[in-house]
């Protein structure tokens, strides 16, 4: 599984990244978590507001720090 956290590096983006990593290690799922800071790449996902979370190429949320149980739902399916 490939998870990308999109964000140029503001406080909320860092928080989102930390949360995603936390959930991944808690659930023990083999997932590759990447932080995407490149604006061109972020824009390429059609994301308007950061932070955004992309799981296997699908944008799951944007413009907010997701809640832990939301993240869990996305990655355990």
């Amino acid at each position, binding site marked *: 599984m490939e998870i990308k956290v999109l964000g140029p590096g503001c406080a909320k983006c860092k928080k989102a990244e930390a949360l995603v990593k936390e959930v991944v290690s808690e659930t023990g799922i083999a997932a590759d978590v990447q932080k995407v800071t490149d604006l061109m790449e972020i824009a390429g996902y*059609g*994301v*308007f507001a950061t932070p955004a979370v992309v799981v296997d190429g699908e944008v799951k949320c944007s413009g907010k720090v997701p809640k832990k149980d939301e993240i869990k739902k996305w990655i355990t399916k």
Partner: protein
Amino acid sequence: MEPLDDLTCTACAGNRVHEKQLRRPAWMYVLAAVAGVVLWWLVYGKLRWLAALLTYSLFRIPAGTSLGSSVEFFLYDTPKVMMLLLIVVYGVGIIRSFFTPERTRDMLSGKSELFGNVLAALLGIVTPFCSCSAVPLFIGFVTAGVPLGVTFSFLISAPMVNEIALALLYGLLGWKVAALYLVTGLLIAIISGWVIGRLHMEKHIEDWVMQIRAGAASGQDETLTWHDRFVYGWDAVKDIIGRVWKYVIIGIAVGAGIHGFVPEGLMASIMGKGDWWSVPLATIVGVPMYSNAAGIIPVVEALLGKGAALGTVLAFMMSVIALSLPEMIILRKVLKPRMIQVFVGVVGGGILLVGYLFNMII
């Protein structure tokens, strides 16, 4: 601060019975909201009395001294500002849950210019926006067919005219100043965006932007329940107050110092309306300063109290908030230098006009 605790409880209770509460009827939320507001109002009305009590009876600072006046100012303004922020951020947070940047874009794309500028400036107040997503938002808007000028109206209005600024202005300077700020801020956003649109500067957008084919929309168009909206509002309170409380306290402390110790009328000689250069100077000084409304307004209040002119102070404040260096550096990634210059020129010009106008009429 009792009301804070009270509202915290409503929100915590919401979290605990998360599953059950999802199905509660809307009237219960209305009832809880009304009860919360009434309680808030009762406490809010007692703040001045409480500050005086603490300063002169508990701390035994003699009335009429500089220290007493500073301490009372601080003890009155801090809870007042925090309470105002609490209720306004909560309320606007709930309103914001109805708007997303995606929805705003859909409303704006294909709109005619002038009407689009007005709509964009208004939507800028309620659309959730953080200046670090200015670039993705810019790209999303422009590639989806929102006119460039309309996009700028949004980008100018969103950081400048916001609930934090309005709540603080209302609480510290009264509804007239808050209304003036709201109207002039919107006008600057509308007119600047319109001018930028008229100048047809599309070729001054960095080339890579237009080549992006924005991908599929993000998959979060789920409908929210009322419970979700209240949670959303409460999250906004935690997030915003968590970020700004330090600035508010520092701002009020500086303001309290000015209030108690700076002699009356000193500011009139520096930031008064007499000299033509005071407005441009205030605007220029504001650019490199990067503060949010929460930190700057308590200082503004104190400056006004010492005779600074309202127009000069408003120009300073708008410049600090709307023309920030960090935001320009971010925008440079999508805009060529010429376009940044025009942006600064047009918005700066608007701010100067507001400054002179208020110095003239008030």
